[in-house]
């Protein structure tokens, strides 16, 4: 279907973009790659009157070393994240997840920041950002503010980014040397996650020292499986022990029931996938 009519602006500065956004109010939408927004507009589920394309603003794209963190511009495409050596060293989980996003075309057009602000519960980037403790840098009329990962994802397709604000960067604290695995479950190739588990693990000798485990599409927002993380701390690097630790992966979750699977099946998936993700992240 053809989207309803809209105006299109491609500002070249962040200030200009913020001004346009303020003027546009409720009727304006940020275009940050468009791999979710354009399909939604074509389905007439959204009908913004103004699109503000961030694609021509310098400085919103790129991956840089920022001391104890890696700084990722919001307009960095998934492909760049998937193939970044810097992230591979310090935040391998992000690379692993980005590699599973849709298909190559989408990975070259769709952006990290766009996916995070879109906050699709079945999206693959929110859960890794959450478990890596990302800091979100948000620009608005009042200046720049920073929001922690735990406060960023507020609900279904809703984040801390206000209607008159723009996410500019994300800082990912370095997890240098941590193993990582993003286990994504779909029924046909290149579909959205029915359930996915993001795991990153720091092993010491024959045991897990620390682990971070996140769940995709097990609720309206990405979820940290904290009981699993706690059980994994000090856990021996062996399958049975890890499976025991991951048995509580679905605890406290409220996954959806839809045509892709009911809630019970999703809980089952979360448990199996968590075990596999942690085993793989730990090099098992």
């Amino acid at each position, binding site marked *: 279907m053809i989207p309803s009519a809209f105006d299109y602006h491609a500002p070249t500065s962040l200030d200009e973009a913020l001004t346009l956004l303020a003027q546009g109010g409720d009727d304006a939408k940020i275009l940050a790659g468009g791999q979710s927004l354009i399909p939604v507009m074509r389905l007439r589920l959204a009908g913004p009157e103004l699109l503000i394309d961030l694609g021509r603003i310098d400085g919103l794209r790129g991956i840089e070393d920022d001391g104890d963190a890696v700084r990722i511009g919001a307009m960095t495409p998934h492909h760049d994240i998937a193939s970044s050596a810097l992230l591979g060293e310090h935040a391998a989980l992000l690379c692993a997840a980005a590699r599973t996003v849709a298909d190559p075309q989408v990975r070259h057009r769709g952006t990290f920041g766009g996916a995070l602000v879109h906050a699709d519960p079945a999206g693959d980037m929110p859960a890794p950002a959450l478990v890596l403790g990302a800091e979100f840098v948000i620009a608005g009329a009042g200046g720049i503010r920073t929001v922690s990962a735990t406060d960023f994802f507020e609900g279904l397709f809703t984040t801390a980014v206000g209607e008159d604000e723009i996410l500019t960067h994300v800082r990912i604290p370095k997890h240098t040397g941590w193993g990582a695995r993003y286990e*994504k479950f779909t029924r046909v190739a290149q*579909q959205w996650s029915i359930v996915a588990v993001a795991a990153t693990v720091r092993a010491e000798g024959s045991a897990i020292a620390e682990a971070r485990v996140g769940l995709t599409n097990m609720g309206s927002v990405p979820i940290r499986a904290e009981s699993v993380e706690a059980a994994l701390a000090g856990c021996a690097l062996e399958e049975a022990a890890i499976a025991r630790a991951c048995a509580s992966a679905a605890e406290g979750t409220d996954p959806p029931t839809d045509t892709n699977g009911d809630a019970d099946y999703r809980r089952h998936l979360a448990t199996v996938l968590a075990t596999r993700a942690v085993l793989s992240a730990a090099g098992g």
Partner: protein
Amino acid sequence: MTSIPLTSPQGAPSDTSSAADGRIGENALRPDGTLKVTGEFAYASDLWMDEMVWGTTVRSPHPHARIVSIDIGPALATPGVYAVLTAEDVPGANAVGLEHEDQPVLAETVVRYKGEPVAIVAADHPEIARQAAKKVVVEYDVLEAVTDARAALDPASVQLRPSGNVVRHLKVRKGEELPTAAVVVSLDFEVGMQDQAFLGPESGLAVPAEDGGVDLYVATQWLHVDQRQVCSALGLPPEKVRLSLSGVGGAFGGREDLSMHVHACLLAMHTNKPVKMVYNREESFYGHVHRHPATMSYEFGAEPDGMLVYGRAEILFDGGAYASSTGAVVGNGGTLGLGPYRFPNVHIDCYGVYTNNPPCGAMRGFGCVQAAFAHEALMDALAERVGVSPAAIRKLNGVREGDVNITGQVIDSAAPCEELVQILLDMPLPAERSGADLLSLPGGVANSTHGEGVVRGVGYALTYKNVGFSEGFDDYSTARVRLQVIGGEAVASVHTAAAEVGQGLITVEQQICRTELGVGRVVVHPKNTQVGSGGSTSASRQTYVTGGAVKAACEAVRARVLAAAAQVCGHTADDLALDGGKVVARSGEVVLDLAELLGDAELFADEGVEETVEWRHRPTEAVDPETGQGNAHVQYAFSAHRAVVDVDVDLGLVKVVALDTAQDVGKAINPDAVLGQIQGGSTQGMGLALMEEIVVKDGHIMNPSFTDYLIPTILDTPPMLIKILEYADPHAPYGVRGVGEPPTISSGPAVAAAIRQATGKALRRVPIRPEHITGT
């Protein structure tokens, strides 16, 4: 002489001319192939006239409701809107349908399924039409909906029609009434509602004509059955309703019924402007019939060695709100529902019922697909009980040429069941899983499995299908073939109304003309109603029936040409043939140049030699209503599949590793196209086994999108070893046997069998969902 519009729309097909080589049996390049790959092929949705307006449809939100009132005022007052029409505006009979004219063009007093058309709107922009459609105010009185086929059979349930809820009940009775057997196996099976999932949505363009008629360009499977219904609804004679086939983006049965045809014509005649209608994807799910969901109870009895003694089956098809082709689907389910096996004793009850679910009708495999899942699961159960292999039980019981089938019909051409199974046994199995290549694992590129919990299974299926229309239907096709000189060259042109829907009929027509008339260049005329009916592009019948008509028309043309040649050259006509643009004697001597002969003004008029032939296959007959006995079918086509699957039993994910097949095609007219049909059909059958289902809840479709209705992609599709047998059917032109449907029937049951073998689970429903495998 019928009038045609002065200007055709952009995107309407023109002549297809090819001078490429390619007689029957040779690989012929499809004229649409390159255009489809490069995106240049004009589909019906590409039709365009600058002065056209856009039509859209107002549909019922309820599965069953009484229409209290319709207020078109606010919609009609919308700037840019030209017309808003309801049932009151249908000038002819407000009733259309393939077998029964039971479906209103626009609902009058009652809506019987969610999505049923209630009103139509024309506006100068599609968006304005859509917005105006939302302003059509329809007041409904919601009625109790019948959404369970089993409940619909109950006389105590709401009766949706004066005649009751049963569209057709077919009984097949043979042999003893209550036979007994040493070994008895039984099961219940359920098949979900599959969609044809064609990519090109319903679309067309209606152009009002000066003679008070209308020209309709549309993507369809059967121009003349559409024409009949459009005429009836418009109250116009056939000469005023002219249909032309436009580019078809997939059909698979889903375009055999009308969709936007009458609506666009009504709007065009009302506004006196060309009207284009294109469904969007969600609307398309409501805008065409689907494969019937089925519930089935089967019981087979056998000797201790596995030799079948009897087969009993009860098959129930949910026909949805309108009859469509439910009657014929019941016919197939009943007469073919036990599979290609020898049964001395048979007791089948096959039902098709009305409900308030989406209407179901034709889809590739037509009644045989559903039954095959049940009879093949039961054959595996029997093999296990008597301790033989799945292949052995099928070889033991498979029908053979000369056998009398369950309706008393002699199978009077090749029935190579045993050989088809043996071919599969002799094919190499895929290598054991190496674990290195993630693409080879369940989950594919999504990497859900690295080999954990993966179990391999192998399954077999053997099935058959009737080719052509059955049970006494007057099944024919018409071909007009002309041989003339164009640019100094002898050129054949062929005109049929048989729809090319992507299966490759145009090349078949060209190949037959080249073979019969010995020319290189063949022009295929656009498909339209300016020539007699070609019958439906369904039932795997066009190569057989339209191929037969083209062959017969070529023979009639050739006879005239050779008779004339005989006058000139002194040979008898019997001693002459056409080859390489020449008239040649049986000795091989070139006698005359064909172009020169045709150019002889004393022998032939300028337009050359033209013959039109209506061709029929041998007749079939209606079956006895009480016993189902009779020569119901014209031809049977056999196929067998072997599926190899890797199943991640922890996640419930399936990867089909190999889907190998053997099929008897009688004669492969275009071998590459035969392979394409078998690959596509195998994949579509696999899709039903694994993922393709329209989920209907209380009459509402829960997944009307290609995001939620899953279809196998190329990454989900395995390599296929394909062995084609060519046992000529002596009754068919060139010995051909229909190709398109058989692989869709045997592939799914083989996949299901392989998953059962891998998991040890019964799995009595398809599609097999991951949670059926994990048990969660």
